[in-house]
């Protein structure tokens, strides 16, 4: 048995590295490795990175375990297919059981924040109100969350897109929405001096995107946190209702286990994302007195509604995401938004069914004339994450009410396209369907039914599988992020969200994690004793 001593540096006077990140790559470990810390954080994405930084800054000894590899941004290829295979969960092939919903999550140090589109929304107030009324989250008022939103927006350089960041595809959406009299706004994004490459989903090669890779993770390391990549946590350990640490495996690039790791820590933060966190808790047979772990999966199933314009658009050029149409954001008006976004050559082959052979090549020959709108709906929490033997299982089928929302979103997107001058709209279905005028929209969409393999859907926002709530019988964790069942076990990722929030969730996760960190720090004596008090930075 080998025991590794992890030296935690003093956080006072900390400085972050100018570039890159100090990471212990699991593939370099061997044998049995025992570690100890105050806190072990599982996952290095939006929730895990914020927790690691805030807790390390408060003087706690923090270890972060990330299942994915550490890929420095200098190695990002700006090649989407290569990036999928290297940076995403299951090499970009994670899907639901029916195979008609691709569930995209980052699987690298920094998690999904490395490969997202930088879109930054606060949680809508009406969503917070729903959470208060339906789940007893009485403290999560807009007023309570305001300083946390403000803090992460400041830390991540979140600003509204300037004029030069509204690419041609987004200018068309803007024009279409304005012609219809619909509300349309520039996105806010977490980016500094955007270089307009359009390659956000492959990672930002020049570190303009303020992902966790270049913000909270190096800041956490500056305050003494230790990060391990290529380490898959297989079990949370508990004793007498108290978290005690985790068991994990370090893997090489082929997926072969090269080291068995144990981290002893009285505080465990599960922040592996809304698919992996419930899988970990289910495998650990922990924190599931409510039988809600893995249930209530929602995911914002989205589609890319493309259209052909008479003039070239070059949808791959410029900032990836420029404006959004929020005319239908309130649930009583539809509960969906439309986001103007770009796409590349490979993605263009996948968004619709243009027919086979010559028909398909005719379609691709016009690639530079295409533009598109991404639909995001307020889906219901009807899915479930679980195990099928040793394989994970994502059960998710569109509820009929959500299918209706999808159709309304496609219709609205088609209306925007035609109002902006599009010549035809491509229906995101497996059938070869095109709409050539506003008058045709309803008739063409009537050919769609709510069945597997009808719509071409992607989820970028899995959520809801360890929901927060005041009632231990209906929720997994309390409002402050701690398990109802296991003291010292916290959840800090999109698993927390009791309902889907319609908008991109990264800022919601950052803000909730910041708040949970504060709550945890206020309770740290409970886990660590009096010795912990007063250490670390205090302002």
């Amino acid at each position, binding site marked *: 048995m080998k025991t590794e001593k992890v030296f935690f540096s003093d956080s006072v006077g900390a400085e*972050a590295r100018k570039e890159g990140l100090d990471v212990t790559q699991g593939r370099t470990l061997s044998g049995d490795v025992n570690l100890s810390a105050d806190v072990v954080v599982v996952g290095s994405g939006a929730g895990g990175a914020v927790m690691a930084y805030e807790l390390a800054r408060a003087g706690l000894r923090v270890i972060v375990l990330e299942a994915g590899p550490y890929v420095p941004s200098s190695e990002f290829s700006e090649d989407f297919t290569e990036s999928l295979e290297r940076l995403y969960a299951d090499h970009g092939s994670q899907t639901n*059981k029916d195979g008609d919903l691709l569930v995209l999550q980052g699987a690298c140090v920094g998690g999904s924040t490395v490969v997202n589109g930088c879109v930054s929304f606060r949680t809508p107030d009406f969503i917070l109100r729903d959470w208060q009324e339906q789940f007893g989250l009485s403290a999560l008022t807009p007023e309570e969350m305001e300083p946390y939103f403000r803090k992460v927006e400041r830390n991540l350089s979140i600003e509204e897109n300037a004029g030069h960041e509204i690419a041609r595809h987004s200018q068309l959406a803007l024009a279409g929405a304005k012609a219809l009299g619909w509300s349309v706004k520039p996105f806010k994004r977490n980016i500094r001096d955007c270089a307009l490459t359009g390659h956000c989903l492959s990672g930002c090669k020049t570190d303009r995107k303020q992902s966790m890779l270049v913000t909270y993770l190096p800041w956490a390391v500056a305050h003494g946190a230790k990060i391990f990549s290529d380490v898959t946590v297989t079990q949370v350990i508990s004793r007498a209702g108290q978290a005690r640490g985790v068991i994990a495996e370090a893997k090489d690039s082929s997926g072969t286990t090269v080291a068995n790791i144990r981290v002893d820590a009285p505080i465990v933060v599960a922040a592996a994302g809304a698919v992996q966190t419930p899988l970990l808790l289910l495998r650990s047979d922990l924190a599931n007195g409510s039988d809600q772990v893995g249930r209530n999966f929602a995911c914002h199933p989205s589609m890319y509604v493309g259209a052909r314009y008479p003039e070239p658009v070059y949808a791959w050029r410029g900032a990836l995401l420029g404006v959004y149409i929020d005319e239908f954001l309130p649930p009583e008006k539809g509960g969906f938004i439309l986001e103007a976004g770009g796409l590349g*050559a490979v993605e263009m*082959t996948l968004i619709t069914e243009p027919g086979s052979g010559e028909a398909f090549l005719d379609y691709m020959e016009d690639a530079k004339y295409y533009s598109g709108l991404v639909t995001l709906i307020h889906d219901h929490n009807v899915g479930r994450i679980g195990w099928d033997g040793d394989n994970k299982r994502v059960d998710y089928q569109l509820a009929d009410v959500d299918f209706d929302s999808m159709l309304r979103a496609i219709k609205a997107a088609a209306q925007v396209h035609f109002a902006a001058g599009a010549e035809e709209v491509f229906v995101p279905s497996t059938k070869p369907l095109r709409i050539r005028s506003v008058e045709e929209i309803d008739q063409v969409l009537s050919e769609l039914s709510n069945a597997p393999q009808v719509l071409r859907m992607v989820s970028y926002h899995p959520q809801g599988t360890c929901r927060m709530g005041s009632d231990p019988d209906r929720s997994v964790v309390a409002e402050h992020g701690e398990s109802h069942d296991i003291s010292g076990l916290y959840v800090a990722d999109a698993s927390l969200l009791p309902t889907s929030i319609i908008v991109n969730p990264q800022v919601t996760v950052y803000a909730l994690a910041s708040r949970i960190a504060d709550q945890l720090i206020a309770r740290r004596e409970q886990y660590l004793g009096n010795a912990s008090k007063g250490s670390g930075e205090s302002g």
Partner: protein
Amino acid sequence: MTSNEPTALLQAMTRRRFLRWLLYSAAAASTCGVVAFAWMKRSPLDQVAVPVGQQSLSAAEYHLFRRAAAVLLPTEGRVFAPLAQIPVLENIDSMLALLAPAVRDELSIGLALFDHGALVSGWHGKRFVDLNNAQALDYFDRWATGNTIQRTLATVVKKMVYVAYWRDANTWPAIEFDGPVSDRWGLASLGNAPLPTDQEKRS
């Protein structure tokens, strides 16, 4: 939408569904006679060697994707990079090699089903790999509007072929796709963000 979606779609095909479909197929085939079925499922391509060094593709799968690519990407006489100059089969092979074993196993069954389905679906009496161009295109189009399994398989095969072709940088000039730009533009890295300076006092 992404490049690996096609392979991901195979998770749709649970063994139960396959068994049920195979049962129907076998029942239909029995109407033609077991002997005839056994004779028809052979293809002259079964005797044709495939290049060595495939990581994941079986010989039958190699022939299937080769035939599918030829039918789906008739690039001759058009602006596109000639199909023969793009390593479509090699790209498909490396994409399949990344799949989890359980998914890869189901994909094998699905591809065999797609190939042999032409025996009874459309009453072609021969496998997909032996259909002429018009028959093969018709086969794709009918399966694209067929039952769930048919839609899944037609979509999987198409998408794998499309992605394997269009992921190659040599195909991009024809559609004016720019590909990677940061190095070409000489963009400098901004590096890590500095530590926040306006840190709020802890309670």
